[in-house]
């Protein structure tokens, strides 16, 4: 038990990220409210970014912005994860804006944002 706790604390960022990923995933599957689905998607994506950024961190080193002409790689953390996360954040913002626009259009038509109600209404309309 104690060993397990020590492992969890050693891998605290990764553990938290994976739990957040699970929370986002399950809510994306189960929530009927479309706005909450968007939230869940955002939580899921940012948990992956947290995981990635934690992988680039190295104990006792500083951000990769060159100071005092110190060019040795042992002074700075790994810059690659930061760059990848930056790209990923843009993608997730774009997707959530698109999702919100879709929700607005559906609301204009059906006056609800509960997905199962929308499906029922759509089916009724088709018949």
């Amino acid at each position, binding site marked *: 038990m104690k060993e397990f706790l020590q492992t969890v604390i050693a891998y605290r960022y990764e553990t938290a990220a994976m739990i957040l990923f699970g929370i*986002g995933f399950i809510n994306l599957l189960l929530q009927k409210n479309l706005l909450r689905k968007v939230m869940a998607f955002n939580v899921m*994506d940012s948990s*992956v970014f947290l995981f*990635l950024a934690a*992988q680039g961190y190295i104990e006792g080193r500083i951000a990769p912005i060159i100071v005092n002409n110190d060019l040795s790689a042992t002074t700075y953390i790994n810059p690659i994860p930061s760059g990848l996360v930056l790209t990923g954040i843009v*993608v997730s913002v774009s*997707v959530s804006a698109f*999702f919100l626009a879709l929700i607005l259009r559906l609301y204009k038509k059906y006056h609800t944002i509960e997905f199962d109600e929308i499906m029922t209404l*759509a089916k009724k309309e088709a018949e």
Partner: protein
Amino acid sequence: MMGAALSIGPALLFSEVSASGGMLPWYQNIPFFSIFLLMIAGIVMPLFRKGKGGFCLAMGVSLLVAAMSAVLLVKLSANGERFTYMMGHYPAPWGNEIAAGPLEALLALMFSLIEALALLGGRKDAASDILEPKQSLFYLMMCELQAAMLALTYTNDIFTAYVFIEISTLAACSIVMARDTAKTIVATIRYLVISLLGSGLFLIGVVMLYCITGHLLIPQLGEKIAELVATGTYTEPLTIVAGLLFIGVAIKCALFRFTRGFRLRTAARRRPRARCFPAWCSRGISYCWSSSFTRCSPLSSSAR
């Protein structure tokens, strides 16, 4: 599937031509130009007020790309050549790169022809179903979708693949909802949610793979994974990563069923043929990805 991919793997790895030093043979610039032509066509598309100009531009560019891919296919299949092309001034483990061989050229030709046919077939429907000011935006989506498919075909970098998968998702969603009725929007939301699940799993797979190997380019990944498998380190994470990547891509590839059925059943009145394109694309992603998995065959061997 992984096993089948493994068996054709070595056959695809023909001679690698290094790209350093001096001008390249002219035909090696074709993949780069075809991707950028499509993207630039997409970027200037909103300047067209009417659908006709957009249609002409999209059609012209996709025919041009098809012709270029055909030339590339002829050139490469003559001697089974395979080359990599640096995107920038820096060689492989540091910069992005794209790679092309006969198979990639064939796929690119196929995509361009399908796109051209879809544009031609869907032209009348698009003109009648989509409002005039939005038609050029529809053709923009078609251009960007094709650019994303070509980039997915040629790319040699797994994170670039993620970005272009997202581009293809957004563009395909916009094409699905182009008719702008309530039914198409409901279909789009279902498509989007499922594809977000898929891309989330794919992203986490890419990230874990990066943590284990420290590389993002597929050839280096392949070498590193072969080394890891040989030394027996990180075997469990590797297996799980392979599973995650596979499930993510599989969810994205099987997508077309989610929209097709709904559209056929409720909106079968008259459907623009252009909208079959996303379906073809998600099939295409699977072909691309099975081809790129073959390039780092150790990954597929660890999946067994």
